[in-house]
């Protein structure tokens, strides 16, 4: 199981071609670990890019999702050095919302960092 997970992480890393994606993924995994400390065993979120956070197949209830948002925002703020708001840009849209999976959330964080460095944030 662990081997599959690392293989998938490596694949995601290579397809997104940047250390910033890996770094963002690491931050989100740390946030998931924090969140798992309060979740019962059957509702734990797997640290995998394909883990569903919201929508069909998701295990989080509204309180869990709220805690994940706030925990991740704080960790991202410490990492990036600026305030991050993960509830912008229609986060729960069924099609394109960035809270669908760990992968989509990571990609969104990278996009935010890019926008910031381009002076758009």
């Amino acid at each position, binding site marked *: 199981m662990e081997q599959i997970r690392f293989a998938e992480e490596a694949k995601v890393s290579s397809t997104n071609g940047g250390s910033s994606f890996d770094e963002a993924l690491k931050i989100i995994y740390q946030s998931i670990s*924090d969140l798992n400390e*309060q*979740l*019962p065993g059957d509702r734990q979120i797997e640290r995998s890019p394909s883990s569903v956070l919201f929508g069909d197949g998701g295990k989080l209830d*509204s*309180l869990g999702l*709220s*805690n994940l948002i*706030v925990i991740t925002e704080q960790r991202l703020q410490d990492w990036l050095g600026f305030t991050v708001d993960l509830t912008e840009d229609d986060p729960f849209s069924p099609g394109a919302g960035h809270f669908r999976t760990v992968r989509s959330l990571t990609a969104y964080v990278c996009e935010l960092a890019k926008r910031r460095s381009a002076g758009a944030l």
Partner: protein
Amino acid sequence: MNLQLISDFNLETLQQYLLKDSSSPQLSVTCAPFGQVFPALLEPVTADRSDFALIWTSPDKIIPAFAAALEQAPVDETRVLTEVRNLVDCLLNAKERFRAMFIVSWTLPPYQRGNGLLSLRQQGLGKLLLKMNLTLAEALEGSGNIYLLDGQRWVEAVGKNAYSPKMWYLAKSPFHADVFRYATGEVKAAVSAVLGATKKLLVVDLDNTLWGGRCR
């Protein structure tokens, strides 16, 4: 053993941490209906009573006169402290229902600056909150099984991110999850102390007293 959580904000995160915590003593944890502090305290004694209760409230939700002061209304200190004593009466009435009750002292978020420079002067919010906590502490002093826990220390232990306005608007909980994680250890320690399960280790230096200064 079971613990009932009574609050005017969402304590489900604390409930989850407490249920997940594997340290002794193991507790089953229930939450009273959200925001129903007084009805939960005024319930009659029943056979399936809880062993312990944790009452954690926001000062501006449980003391309406303090909420008015927060909204920049003139501070009516007498009314505020009367409302605190009314709460104390309810706590004292409820104490027969529990083996022990833990009350978390009131705190304010750092962004609630009140009267700024004058916060600790007459009519200041900081001073008023100190008086409210002192009134609570003194009124519960001789109550036997009601213990006041220092909420300010929990908030300070977590630091600048202890309060989360976003969590309030998303989930009706004013605190970051780290505050509840920290509180879990504190509540467990309090329950252990009441049960007499805490241990004290004394390390003494007895050179030249027991064995003449040598280890054999």
